[in-house]
């Protein structure tokens, strides 16, 4: 079983000390990426649940700058210590309750005191207490605890705070403060320089009228910045002045508070002044002070990174990022930082110019606005020959993602528009279909009308060029079915033919025509044109499929299935009468069986025999997706389990699983194997050839190496072996080619002019070695300087000649 398509942006990434690696929390693992190439180098595997924090151990002295150690914390309640260069697990500490956030202040302040004996290392972890949750539901289950990492145990009795929900802890760059926010309250603790198990904390609280969403500490001064849901940024200066001066004793200032003394500061908050900046229109997600403390970076849902000059409040922008920002992390290298975008992408920025260097992207999440058409259509499409995944994204693109390499291949802009997060959606890419050989893609986009004016459905065909594997637009068809929306597109496996079925009551068969114009011009003009139109009693056509050999076209006309000859457009037969409109049709491999699925209040999965034109067997299942294998007579369905039907007595494991994947043989209604999966709503399922190969290879190899790919609603995928029994020893291995090492960094001369040509030492040396002079050192430097070999080389000769003389003297 192989999983992939992890979210890269679930928690902030971390740079290694030399800024050449980026550690990203990806589900249960931590992936290490090279910042110079953007490719994955290695992976830290060991956690059993989502990793929530990764902290790179900073170098304690300049010599140990190449140290590659990190701490990770995960929801499985374990803290692990890794050498990520190897990669190797060093230590594991079991906390017991899931950790949502972890900071280690002593790592940052440690560098100051570099005497031989290291004090104990303390981490502050935001844990979620699971136990009391069952007893009283609305209790404070999130708590900030202290953990002695050296002794690998929780420090008893130190609970800094209890909150309703575990959030994240923010740490100041100096390691002096840690803070957290909950609703309209900021809590800040000052960590004493000598941290030990029993130590008092100075505690500061700051209040605001809106809920906080971000928090940042100034690296040197007592300045705290916080963002709220309305997009305001509040900056408190001189935070905790009083608390510190009075040695932790809080002074109740009461009513005699002088408003002019503390402009903008609410109530009795401990700060000198508070200023508010308002540029963001919606909530602020990112706040970060630059390392010198002169600038403040902020970002939010608009997808704009704003750089504020802290003293003047002047702004600079990195606009049009195109997706909400989640994190901003800077690296030890001052010219490099990274932003994490909500569309599962991490981008590396060259810093002062804020220019995007490269992107590390995972599968784009499903669009929040994309209303799924009734019936099928998670939107995700598999291509079984190349093992690719086509994902329609929010910004009107289709992303191609390799299932086996677990990385993005390319992106295609479907409609020429820019996406601005937060805008009202007026265009959506409804359907994507890729032909079995991967040479053609077809997309459907819909423009939504403004008060009934100007809705438009357009069908686009894209051709893949064989050289660079990029899709280019081949044909645009406006309103292919009049006003009717398109329910499905199917490609014929054997020829360049496609069918689009419409809710408007007809289907159209499209063929690709070739026009190679005159002999001396090699301009090839290919395009798709309508070959035939068919309809059945004006019923809405809801699904379509070609048989494996391409001889039969099946189109579902609401509740019946019509079978057509695609070439001559003749209605061959009409079968079936289901209770609900059929939402999916699929021929099983090259066998004579057809699978139809209908959803709604009375869902049904039916297997039809094409020879007898009758039902073979059927189930009452709410089927989300159907996948059929290509050669064999097996197929798999992804069925949703209705919670209502669920019996309380079923196993606990079933509770978490909302869906089930069933693998059937067509002749037998008993499933061959079963998997329980979660987040099945909006998921997809397909058989994929385990290794991408060309057509002739396919002919000789058996269908054995087909694997079942399942992608869930959150766009994480799993590759399953269809032969459930031997799930452990899969017949294929993941050919994951981590790029071995980051490329050598060029600097100085080489970065400008490239490498110097290789200088061969041997040729140049010959004239000198053959010189039979006693006093080489005398003649060596005679001659024009341009014909002399370079000085470093002469130097060694010169020294050698001196040595010789001396040895002769000794003799």
């Amino acid at each position, binding site marked *: 079983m192989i999983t992939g398509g992890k979210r890269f942006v679930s928690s902030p990434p971390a740079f290694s000390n030399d800024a050449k690696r980026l550690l990203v929390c990806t589900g249960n693992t931590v992936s290490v990426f090279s910042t110079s190439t953007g490719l994955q180098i290695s992976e830290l595997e060991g956690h059993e649940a989502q990793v929530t924090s990764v902290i790179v151990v900073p170098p304690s002295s300049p010599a140990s700058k190449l140290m590659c150690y990190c701490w990770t914390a995960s929801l499985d309640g374990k803290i692990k210590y890794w050498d990520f260069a190897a990669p190797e697990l060093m230590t594991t500490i079991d906390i017991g309750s899931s950790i949502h956030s972890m900071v280690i202040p002593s790592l940052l302040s440690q560098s100051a005191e570099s005497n031989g004996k290291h004090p104990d290392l303390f981490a502050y972890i935001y844990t979620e207490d699971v136990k009391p949750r069952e007893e009283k539901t609305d209790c404070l289950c999130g708590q900030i605890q202290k953990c002695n990492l050296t002794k690998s145990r929780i420090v008893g009795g130190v609970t800094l705070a209890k909150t309703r929900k575990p959030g994240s802890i923010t740490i100041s760059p100096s390691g002096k403060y840690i803070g957290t926010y909950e609703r309209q309250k900021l809590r800040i603790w000052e960590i004493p320089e000598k941290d030990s198990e029993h130590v008092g904390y100075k505690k500061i609280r700051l209040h605001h009228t809106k809920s906080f969403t971000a928090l940042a500490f100034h690296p040197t001064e007592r300045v705290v910045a916080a963002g709220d849901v309305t997009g305001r940024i509040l900056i408190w200066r001189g935070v905790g002045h009083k608390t510190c001066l009075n040695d932790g004793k809080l002074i109740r200032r009461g009513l005699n508070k002088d408003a002019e003394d503390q402009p903008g500061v609410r109530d009795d908050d401990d700060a000198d002044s508070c200023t508010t900046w308002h540029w963001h229109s919606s909530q602020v997600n990112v706040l970060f002070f630059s390392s010198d403390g002169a600038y403040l970076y902020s970002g939010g849902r608009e997808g704009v990174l704003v750089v504020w000059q802290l003293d003047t409040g002047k702004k600079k922008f990195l606009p049009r990022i195109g997706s909400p920002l989640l994190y901003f992390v800077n690296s030890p290298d001052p010219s490099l930082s990274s932003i994490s975008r909500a569309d599962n992408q991490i981008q590396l920025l060259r810093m002062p110019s804020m220019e995007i260097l490269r992107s590390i992207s995972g599968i784009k999440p499903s669009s929040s606005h994309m209303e799924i058409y009734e019936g099928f259509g998670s939107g995700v499409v598999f291509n079984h020959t190349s093992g690719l995944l086509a994902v329609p994204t929010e910004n009107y693109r289709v992303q191609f993602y390799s299932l086996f390499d677990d990385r993005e291949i390319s992106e295609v802009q479907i409609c*020429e528009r*820019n996406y601005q997060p937060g805008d009202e959606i*007026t*265009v959506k890419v409804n359907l994507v279909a890729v032909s079995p050989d991967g040479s053609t893609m077809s997309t459907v986009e819909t423009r939504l009308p*403004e008060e009934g004016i*100007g809705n438009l459905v357009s069908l686009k065909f894209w051709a893949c060029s064989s050289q660079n594997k990029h899709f280019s637009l081949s044909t645009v068809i406006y309103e292919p079915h009049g006003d009717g929306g398109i329910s499905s597109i199917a490609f014929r496996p054997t020829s360049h033919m496609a069918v689009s079925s419409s809710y408007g009551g007809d289907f159209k068969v499209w063929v690709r025509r070739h026009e190679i*114009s005159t002999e001396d*011009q090699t301009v090839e003009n290919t395009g798709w044109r309508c070959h035939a139109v068919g309809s059945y009693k004006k019923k809405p056509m809801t699904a379509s499929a070609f048989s494996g050999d391409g001889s039969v076209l099946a189109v579902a006309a609401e509740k019946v299935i019509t079978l057509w000859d695609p070439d001559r457009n003749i209605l061959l037969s009409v079968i079936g009468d289901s209770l609900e409109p059929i939402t999916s049709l699929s021929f099983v491999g090259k066998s004579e069986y057809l699978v139809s699925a209908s959803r709604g209040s009375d869902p049904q999965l039916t297997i039809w025999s094409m020879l007898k034109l009758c039902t073979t067997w059927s189930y009452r299942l709410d089927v989300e997706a159907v996948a059929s294998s290509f050669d064999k007579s097996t197929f798999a369905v992804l069925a949703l389990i209705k919670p209502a039907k669920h019996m309380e007595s079923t196993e606990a494991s079933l509770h978490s699983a909302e869906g089930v994947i069933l693998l059937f043989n067509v002749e037998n209604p008993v499933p061959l194997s079963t998997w329980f999966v979660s987040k099945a709503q909006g998921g997809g399922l397909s058989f994929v050839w385990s290794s991408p190969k060309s057509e002739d290879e396919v002919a000789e190899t058996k269908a054995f190496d087909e694997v079942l790919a399942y992608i869930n609603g959150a766009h994480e995928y799993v590759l399953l072996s269809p032969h459930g029994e031997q799930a452990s020893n899969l017949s294929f291995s993941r050919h994951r080619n981590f790029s071995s090492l980051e490329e050598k960094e060029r600097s100085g001369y080489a970065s400008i002019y490239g490498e110097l040509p290789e200088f061969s030492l041997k040729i140049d040396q010959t004239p000198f070695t053959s010189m039979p002079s006693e006093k080489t050192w005398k003649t060596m430097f005679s001659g024009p300087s341009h014909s002399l070999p370079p000085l470093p080389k002469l130097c060694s000769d010169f020294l050698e000649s001196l040595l010789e003389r001396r040895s002769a003297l000794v003799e």
Partner: protein
Amino acid sequence: MAETFPVKPKLRPTSGKSTPTAESKYWKSFKIPKDIETTPSKSLNYPITSLSFSPVAPHDFAATHSASFTVFSGKTLEPKFTVNDFSDAAASSSFRCDGKLLAAGDLTGTVHVFDAKSRNHLRRLKGHSAAARVVCYPRAADKFHLFSGGDDSVVKYWDVAAEKCVLNLLGHKDYVRCGDASPVSDDMFVSGSYDHKVRVWDVRVSSAVSVAELNHEKPVESVIYLPSGGLIATAGGNFVKIWDVIGGGKLLYSMESHNKTVTALCMGKVGRVGGDEAEQNRILSVSLDGYMKVFDYAKFKITYSMRFPHPLLSVGFSPDSLTRVIGTSKGILYIGRRKGKVESADLGDPVALGAVEDEPQRRVLRPSYFRYFHRGQNAKPAEGDYLIKRPKKVKLAEYDKLLKKFRHKESLVAVLNGKNPENVVAVIEELILRKKLLKCVTNLDAEELGLLLGFLQKYSTMPRYAGLLTRLVNKVVELRAEDIRSSDQLRGHIRNLKRDVEEEIRIQQSLLEIQGIISPMLRIAARR
């Protein structure tokens, strides 16, 4: 990062006709020069029986019609002079290889020889007992002989200076109507006759018998040598045949795309304007069906055909491939001239000039020269250089710029002021996507509203835009009813609009009626 996408109109289906090929562009580029288009002299009133070009520049040409022939200047395409020294209709004309003499036959059987410059009547060659339909000078270098053929089915070979018939070539059994001299040999020529035969003659053979005989199977109207001298094209009936003479008179191809008798053939050349490809030879054939066809005999394919309103009798193509002349039975000359250098007198000069031009560039550039500041800017990339292309600049129209600044109403007005309805519709669609169209419509002032209504009146009934615009019209009228009522001008617009819509409805109704009539018939036809 986001890019800038200018607003683009919807794509339109390209017409089924493919883009014109380079060859058809070439043949279309023979146009009647504007300055002589209207001169009436182009119409000669009588059928133009033959056309011949002078082989030397500037390639004057002669057209025979009725009892005279006219020589046209190859430079200006104006008639230079007309000779009327014929007692009967002139039938054929031919220039000598140096272009100085011109021979023409007439229907009495006499062959006349003129000085092409002074029009002096130099010689009268009398011998044919019937009309001399073919007169032809040898093409290569022979200046003293010519041959003629006549309705007495004899082909005569003349010594021009002595006005004496050297050889009587016998063999044809019907009128000799056409002939051509070999382009490679002065002694070889070919004649075609109404007895369906084409005979190849060689005057070196003393027996006065043809060296080869080809059977065209139709009365031969025209015969030409192809430039190699080894192939012959014959025309007669509705078809043109290509023969290989060297290969023993083998038929290579029969081109049968004319619908009426092919009357004349001539050689044409397709030369690329850029000169990147070698000139290719074509056969031009004209026929009584009014078509001129261009035939590529290397590929045996018609590469171009052109329709004329009259039956065509003769065709000529200048050796410098700049002029194409077609004569009709109505006496109209279709003269086509391609743009190009008429004079290509001295080719040696530009090369010499180029060498001279190179010289000053060697001078050392100093900042006192203007060119100093341009040095290196015109450097061309070498063969192996890796080119880094400058990113293409996106062109933004005014409405695009306004849309970028979110000034929606201004952009709508800007595009309405433009002429292109497609762009207007594209901007309207973009505004719909931004959900700002109706706000724009409400914000328009009276003048701008008039602009919009004018546009809607013009295009809302156009099928391509109707789906969008008719709904928009409804909305506009609904939203701005009061403004429209208060202004006379706007009411005028609405009146026009109403009239157009009513008209369109009438059209649609009649179309529906027609559909009602046709559809049962189609159904019946489909059943059979």
